[in-house]
């Protein structure tokens, strides 16, 4: 499996798209950090971009890579290698190389600038959340690609999943908050965020930045949960679940799939 991961990883690292992705983050964070004197403002802007863009790139890249390497997968399947090793290995190769682009692209400018300014913990949470989102959405994309032979359908569903998580979920969330405003909604909204990794990551970063006072009473409830180490561990655990469960589904689908 390690061989497949490394092969897949180096294949991607050599590809042009990784460089484009990497240099995009590099330029972006350089621009934000050096044109803007306030690091926490830069972290907020980066957060806005990361919570939207990493899932999008993760899904599209994941689906694309699977469809492109189909012939290679068929070749591997004829070899005496475990199926789970092939698919999980490929998945990890994609996810790791994408996260590496993200971490290096954001990390280098921050090392040159941000760490000296003492906002290391904000920055670390940003990187952790970004990597988690990449792992989650590449896994979701692999699930979609494995279930749909038709490329167009696969791409369609992948975009739909991203749209659902990034936009539609929040819309439904907001409408239900407005509709049920007579009821105490703090705990309900706390639970609702756990079902969407993008929301969860956004709130984790928002609370880390000193923006929580803005959130008023609801913010206090959130802060009392996420602010504690228990809350942080729980939310990281939920993010881990968001990675592990789709991987499990990849594993199951890969075992049963008929090529």
């Amino acid at each position, binding site marked *: 499996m390690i061989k497949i991961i490394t092969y897949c990883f180096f294949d991607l690292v050599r590809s042009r798209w990784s460089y484009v992705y990497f240099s995009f983050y590099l330029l972006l964070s350089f621009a934000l950090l050096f044109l803007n004197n306030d690091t926490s*403002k830069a972290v*907020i802007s980066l*957060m*806005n971009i990361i*919570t*939207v863009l990493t899932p999008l790139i993760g899904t599209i890249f994941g689906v694309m890579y699977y469809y492109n390497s189909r012939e290679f997968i068929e070749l591997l399947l004829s070899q005496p290698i475990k199926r789970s090793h092939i698919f999980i290995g490929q998945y990890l190769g994609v996810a790791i190389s994408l996260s590496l682009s993200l971490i290096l692209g954001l990390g280098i400018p921050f090392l040159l600038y941000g760490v000296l300014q003492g906002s290391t913990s904000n920055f670390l949470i940003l990187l952790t959340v970004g990597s988690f989102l990449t792992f989650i959405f590449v896994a979701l994309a692999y699930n979609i690609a494995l279930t749909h032979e038709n490329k167009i359908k696969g791409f369609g569903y992948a975009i739909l999943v991203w749209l659902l998580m*990034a*936009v*539609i979920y*929040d*819309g439904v*969330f*907001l409408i239900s*908050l*407005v509709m049920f*405003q007579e009821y105490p*909604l*703090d705990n309900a*909204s706390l639970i609702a*965020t756990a079902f969407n990794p993008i*929301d969860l990551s*956004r*709130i984790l970063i*928002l609370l880390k930045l*000193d*923006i929580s*006072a*803005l*959130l*008023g*009473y*609801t*913010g*206090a409830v*959130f802060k009392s949960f996420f602010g504690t180490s228990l809350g942080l561990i729980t939310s990281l655990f939920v993010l881990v679940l968001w990675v592990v469960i789709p991987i499990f589904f990849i594993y199951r689908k890969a075992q049963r799939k008929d090529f």
Partner: protein
Amino acid sequence: MIDTAQKHDTIIVKEGVYKEHDIIITKPITIIGKKNVVIDAEAKGYVFKVLADSVTIKNISAKNVGKSYTKDFAAIYISRSNHIVIENVTLTNVFFGLLIEKSKNIRIRNNYISSKATTEAGTGNGIHLWHCSNAEIEENELHSLRDGIYFEFVKNSVVKNNHSHHNLRYGLHFMFSNNNEYLQNTFNNNGAGVAVMFSKYIKMTRNKFLKNWGTASYGLLLKEIYDAEIIHNEFSENTIAINLEGATRINYVNNTFSNNGWALKVAGACYKNIFKSNNFLNNSFDVSYNSKLNDNSFKGNYWSSYTGYDLDKNGIGDVPYRPVKLFSYIVNKTPEAIILLRSLFVDIINFSEKVTPVFTPKNLVDEAPLMQKVL
């Protein structure tokens, strides 16, 4: 010693620590301390009680004023006295700092007053004026008290160049006090910077309201206030820069609001306010309204989130700006919705509301938004 003094004598106090309390002054005298004069009241009550006209107290330190839930112990208590001067006085660990009742013509300059406030009920105010007029309060530093400066039924007074910070409740607090002015003060890290309530004709110029940040913190809290002027102030990093409730006929000119949660939060009964030539820079919400009605005017302000253009290059944007976002309207109705702050969906609905306003007040627009910051 005071008993032996004649009227209008000057008493010069020698260096040293004096363990005294309840020093009662009943005749017009001047008390001046040499270097390092400290009066320790050992938490037993008042330090000075001034009950006469024309008293001056200078260059003295006092500490450890008694604490009580039934009596208003103060470092310097002044009652029914006119022409009082308090200068270069350092008061630490006080209950009330200066407590002044029914007095006129008071000068309070260059003093330092602090306490160790932990609860609102267990602490007094730094400078507390009740039923006074013609007071001048200048260049004082006040911190860790309940209210830095408190005015109740005070007229024709000026508060200038003070620094009031880290107070539990308000930096400066007006109740039922008309025709006053405060200028060039700095209020930072207070529960709320300044609260002006039930007052008329207050002038507020060139003050700084900084970092009044917390779940219920304000830079400036206006409640039932009429005919005021708010000019050239700076509001930075407050949760709510100005909270308006029942504020009417107020002019807001040349103020700068930067990096606040809410720059203006407008609750009910605010009429005929005029906002002109202000800068709104990087606030999470520029203006928030809780109703669809609007009787206030916004004209010629600079909004950092304005995205319009200026074809004729006259410095005024050609597209009107709508400062109330749909999301701020929703947050007012359902506070829990703030959890979706900075979500992509919120940006989308804000944009669609901007294009076709449905929920926000239709006439709440800045018809002439500026392209450049007002200096």
